Each structure stands twice: as C-alpha cells, then as structure tokens.
C-alpha cells in the first residue's frame, strides 16, 4: 500500500505543469492582448456612453438606453450625412483608383522623364491633408488664387469652388484626389513592376493588342494590389474629416456634413458626447462590414493570382 502511494505521488509530480510553463503562451501573446484591450476599452466605453446622455456641458449623466440611436435614425441630419459620406467615399475612391492605375501604367515606361516624374508625383503624399487643403484654398481664392488667374485667361471669373453647394463636393473630391492619387499610383506601380515578364512577352509574340494584354493579363494579375489600394482608400475616404473641415467646415449649409464631421461637431463643438457617438459607431460598423468583405475578396483574388 505504501509503495503504491509512493508511485502515485511520483506520477503526479512528473505530470504537474509548472506555472510559468502554463503561463508562457499568455506571456507571448501579452503585447497583442494589451493592444487589443487598448482598442476594446475605448470601443466598449463608446458603446456605453452612446446609451447615456453624457455631455461635457453638465455634471453627471443618465442612462437613456437606445434613445440616442432612435433619435439619429429618425433624423434627416443623419441620413443626409450618410448620403454625403457615401458620395464622397465612392467618388474619391473611384477616381483615385482609375487615375492612379492610369498614371502607374504611364510611368512603367523607362526613360528619364518617368524617373523624374516618379519622384515628383509622390510629393503630395508628403504634405498633411489639412495643409494641402489650405494651400488649395489659397490657390482657388477668387481674389489672389493662381487657379482663378488661370481661369481668367479663358474668361471665367469668380468660379465658386467650395462656396457653392453645387461645386463644393467636386472641390473637396478634387483636393482629396490630389493628395491621395500618388498613394494609389505607388501601390499600382509596385504591383506592375512585380508582375512576371514572360506572359507579356508571349502575348506580344502572339500579336495581342495593348487593350487585350491589359484586360486579360495585367488587370487579373494586378487584382491583389488593386484590392489593397481599394481597402485603404475607401476606408479613409469614408472617415474623411481633415480636408472637408479645413475647406468648408461642412458647408455651405450642410452640403459636406458627412458622418465624421456631424459626429465631431455634435460631440465637441456642441458638447453632446452621448448623441455624437451613434454617428461614429455607425460609421465604424459600416467600415467594418465593407472592409471585412473586401479583405475576404482580396484573399480570394490573391489565391487566384497565385494560381491556386
């Protein structure tokens, strides 16, 4: 009996996993866990406060359940901001993808001009969007702007640019494109340069036209890069704040009041944080949904491009 007990004890001792061994996986993932907590805590806090009437302008707050959410869903201001967000996001991303790809294709040729242009064309990326907007504001100014002076040569005076509800969106989209087309162009250029040469040489030998080669070779093989650019640009365009705020503060009237600006104004300028958070959480949900779909699509085209 005594022997049997000893054997049993020895067996337990050998199989007991030391604490540090058990904790090791958790220690390894600790940095990413902390990062996740760093993201989750503000997010959970935001959800919590969206269910309250929290305001910077008074002490204390009350739980109001879904009242803030009900209010914004029934508000024309909210749906207008959704419309502006969608218009801005789709227009800027669409234009940037097309022009960025076009410029990248042009820069694929090897000569001294393209070498210089590849450097010059990334200059806008080095400027903060808000500074770029202020520079454009000066250039578009009807009194002193260089663009105005240029248009004067063609008999166009006092073009309204950001001052008119009819042209404000176009002006903001134009500035956004100026800032971010180089980003798309760079990604596309990197993609184009990484493509294998042999399929293109074969197509050339077989007498395939440029359009045929582009449609059947370049575009399918470039898809993973196109999707990466699309994910980055669409996400950022849907959240855009700096360019619109610096240009018109959302005006004229409510013309450019997208979800970010409406949420920010409600939360900080008007101090109603509880009412502002549903705008920003809704924007987050939209972006999360779209980005998860795009990432899945990207993984799929990446497999296709790799021949899997």
């Amino acid at each position, binding site marked *: 009996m005594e022997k049997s007990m000893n054997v049993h004890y020895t067996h337990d001792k050998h199989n007991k*996993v030391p604490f540090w061994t058990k904790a090791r996986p958790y220690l390894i993932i600790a940095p990413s866990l902390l990062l996740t*907590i760093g993201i989750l805590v503000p997010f959970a806090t935001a959800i919590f406060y969206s269910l309250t009437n929290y305001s*910077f302008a008074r002490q204390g707050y009350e739980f109001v359940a879904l009242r803030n959410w009900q209010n914004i869903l029934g508000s024309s201001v909210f749906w207008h901001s959704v419309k502006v967000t969608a218009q801005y996001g789709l227009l800027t991303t669409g234009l940037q993808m097309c022009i960025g790809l076009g410029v990248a294709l042009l820069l694929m040729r090897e000569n001294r001009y393209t070498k210089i242009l590849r450097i010059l064309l990334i200059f806008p990326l080095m400027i903060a969007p808000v500074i770029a907007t202020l520079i454009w504001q000066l250039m578009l100014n009807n009194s002193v702007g260089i663009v105005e002076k240029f248009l004067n040569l063609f008999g166009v005076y006092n073009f309204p640019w950001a001052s008119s509800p009819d042209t404000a969106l176009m002006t903001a989209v134009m500035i956004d494109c100026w800032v971010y087309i180089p980003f798309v162009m760079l990604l596309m250029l990197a993609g184009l340069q990484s493509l294998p040469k042999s399929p293109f040489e074969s197509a050339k030998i077989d007498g395939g036209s440029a359009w045929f080669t582009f449609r059947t070779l370049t575009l399918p093989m470039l898809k993973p890069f196109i999707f990466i650019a699309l994910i980055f640009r669409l996400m950022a365009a849907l959240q855009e704040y700096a360019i619109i705020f610096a240009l018109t503060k959302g*005006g*004229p009237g409510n013309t450019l009041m997208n979800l970010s600006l409406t949420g920010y104004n409600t939360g900080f300028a008007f*101090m109603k944080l509880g009412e502002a958070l549903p705008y920003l959480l809704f924007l987050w949900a939209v972006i999360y949904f779209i980005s998860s779909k795009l990432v899945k699509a990207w993984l799929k085209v990446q497999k296709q491009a790799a021949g899997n």
Partner: protein
Amino acid sequence: MIVSKKFKGIISAMLVVLIMASLVGCGKQEPAPGGGTATGGGGAATPSEGFSWDMASGSKIQVMFNQHTYADGIIQKIPEFEALTGIKVEYALTPEENYFDKLTTALNSRSGNPDIFMTGAYQLWQYAPAGYVADLTPFIEDPNMTNPDYNMDDFFPKIVDALKWDLVPGNKVGTGPQWALPIGFETNNLAYNKKVFEERGLEPPKTMEDLLKLTKELNEFDGPGTYALAIRGARNWGTIHAGYMTTYSNYGAVDFAVEDGKLVSKVNSPEAIEMTEMWVDLIKAGGSPSWSSYTWYQAGADFGAGKAAMLFDASCNGYFQNPDGASQEAGNLAWVSPPLPEGMTQINSNLWTWSLGMNEYSKNKTAAWLFMQYFTGPEYQLWAAINASAVDPARQSVFNDPEFQAVFAKSKGYAQAMEETVDGTTIQFTPQPHFFETTTEWAATLQDIVGGKYASVEEGMNALKVKMDQIVSDVVIE
C-alpha cells in the same frame, strides 16, 4: 501542452474585470471641490494677513492660451511675473480652430490642469453650469488676496459685467458670479480703405442703406478679384457673432425670448427678416465670391491686401492690418461706427471679450489668482496696449492714457468709432447652453439662403426658427 479550463477561466475573468474597471474609471464623476472660496485648492500657502505678490512662491501653474495677439503679450511678460511672484508658469498655445475642443476636454477631465485658461463669454455659458470654472468673486472681495491697486472699478462696466452670469438660461449677463476677467475686448465697426474712398470722392456710410449703395458701387473697384465688403461667412458661430449680430441688434431684433418658462427663437420676427434680407443683399451685391468659407482671418487679410474696400467685423481685425508693414494697405485704413438702419440713432454692437478664467479643480488657486491679477491689472494692460498690440483695452485708465491715445490716433477714426460704440457694446445674444449649436445652425442657414436653397429670406428664417426651438427644447427656465 494542456492548460486547464480553470486557468483559462481565471485569465478570462481577470480580463473582464480589467475592462470593467477601465470603463468605470472612465466614467467616474469626481465631486466638485469646495467651490468658489478664495482659499480653496491646495498647493499654495493661504495668506491670512495682507496681500503679497510672493504669497504663493514655489507653486507651479499651467496656463492654456489660444493663439492670439493677446496671448503673445502675456507670454512675453511671463518671466517678469515669475521673478515677481516666485511662481513657475508652464503654458500651452493652441490655434483657435482646435483651442476650445482641447480646453473642453481638459476641463472635463477635472484634473485641475490647466489652472488658468483663455476664454470668451459664450464658452462660460457651457463651462460654468458644468462646474468647470471657479467663481472669482470671493477672490476679488478678499483684501488678503487682491492687490489694493487692482481697481475693479477701472474696467469698462459692460465689458467686465459680460463675464458675470447667474447660470439661468435666458437671463442676460451682468448679474451673478464673476466667472472670468477681461484681458481685452472687441466691438464691431466698419473699417474702410480711405485711399479708395478719397480717389472716388466717397464718404463712409452712416446707414445700412448707404452701405448697400456703396457696396454695389465698389464691387470690383479695382478690377476682377477685388470686391466691396469683407464679412465672415464660414459655417460656425463666428459668422453670426460679429457684424451680423451687431446689425441684427441695431434693427431691434433678438435671438430668443422667454415664454412660459421656455426659450423661444425669434429669428423669424419682422425685424430679423428685414435685417437678414439686407445682409444677404450686401453679400450678393459686393461680398467675396468665397464668402461662405471666410472666417475673421480671411476677411481681415483681404481688407489689408487691398482686395476689399470695406470690412464690417471685429474692431481689432482691421486694426491689426494698419501698423506699418502689417499689410499692403497699412496706413490707408480708417474706421467709422457701425452703420445703422434708417431712422435709428442708438448704436448697439455685439461684444467679444478675451478673458482669463480659473479652473474650479485647480490645485493652485492662490497662484492662479495672482497670475490673473497680474495680467488683467492696470500696469500690464497699459504695457500690452502700447507695446503688444492689445488694442481695445478693457480698462478705462488704459483707454484714457495719453500714450495709448497717441497710438490710437495713428488709425484714423478708430478712437472716435470706439467711443461712439463702447457704451452700446454688450453681449447681444441670450445666454443659453446650446449657444454654439444654435449659432452654427444659424450660419448654415445663412449660407443656404445666400446659396438659393430657400425661395425667400423669410422661408429660410422660418426654417431656422423651427431648428433653434428644437435645439433649446430641453432648456427649462425656473
């Protein structure tokens, strides 16, 4: 490796507790400190007998400034203040676009930092009810805390009273606790380019009808790219606060009235509609084509650059363009008091006052109060008015000082316009906690009216009234 379910459970529980603790921590409401006492707040010796500049020696205070000429003057003199008091001053300077957002967040943290901040009166209508701002009255009334030479009576009464409010929405400023002290103020008047006027044999306008006539006449006065009248138009409260509100009050219009314990918007009254029609006519007849993006900065810059013949804005905006080398048109600028509607004689003007407020949660209130005294006191104010372009001083002694009068005299008509306007200069808005939301909506509607969204000004103002009533619907006046 096999990890027990129990171990996983412990880790999960710890994470949940951590997240919940963080949430609770974020939402924690600190009780307000014993508010409004001159001796409130620790960190500095509380004097018992007699005032002394070194009574808080060894303290350190944090100050938040908006990037402005008034702040530049104070920053220049901080070393002298530190030498006099033994108080160490640290400061942050933030551009106006983001200043109040940053300040609101800092005050909301209730950490006591900053101890002192630059503010306007409108912001106090939000900060004071929230308990962020210390009542200065106990400090002012305590002879142990306040320099005998400080002289509160020296301030222009309407300027210093604009920073008093009893916290009741709808009640005018001028009664209740003193929430801040002025370092300068801005009234609104009409600045014009005298060279342009003299070349054309024109006289500055006395009435709004004269102003409209001149605006039509002076549009493109120097070819394409030039225009008659620079005014603000950006989508924020500043557009309503300056020339617009001044003229609005001169037409006898008001923003709100109190009816049955509620605030009711009056922006669609006949006077308000008539005034807004005139304002829209001015913009269309000779305002900047980029009007809807113009803040005070663009309006002043165009006037100084000779692109605009007139500027209807804050008094100091044009003034900053006039000293030698400040702008292309420096020396050519002149001023008259705000044009009035036909038949009116009483000049009203809306007031803006940059001032210093104290954080209710400051841990260094004695030191903070010494800072406020020094920089709102007569000696510094005179120096700043003469040497640091702190024009429109809030103190009468500075305004009447011969040396300052000599500085004023370099700008034709400025002193006279100021003298004619100062008595009617007060806050023309009704104090209420949704000031920034209602005035931003007002500016957006004005942009829509000018942009042609509404068939008439009346239609636009009717729509605005509905929105403003909705915004203030939660304000109950007891």
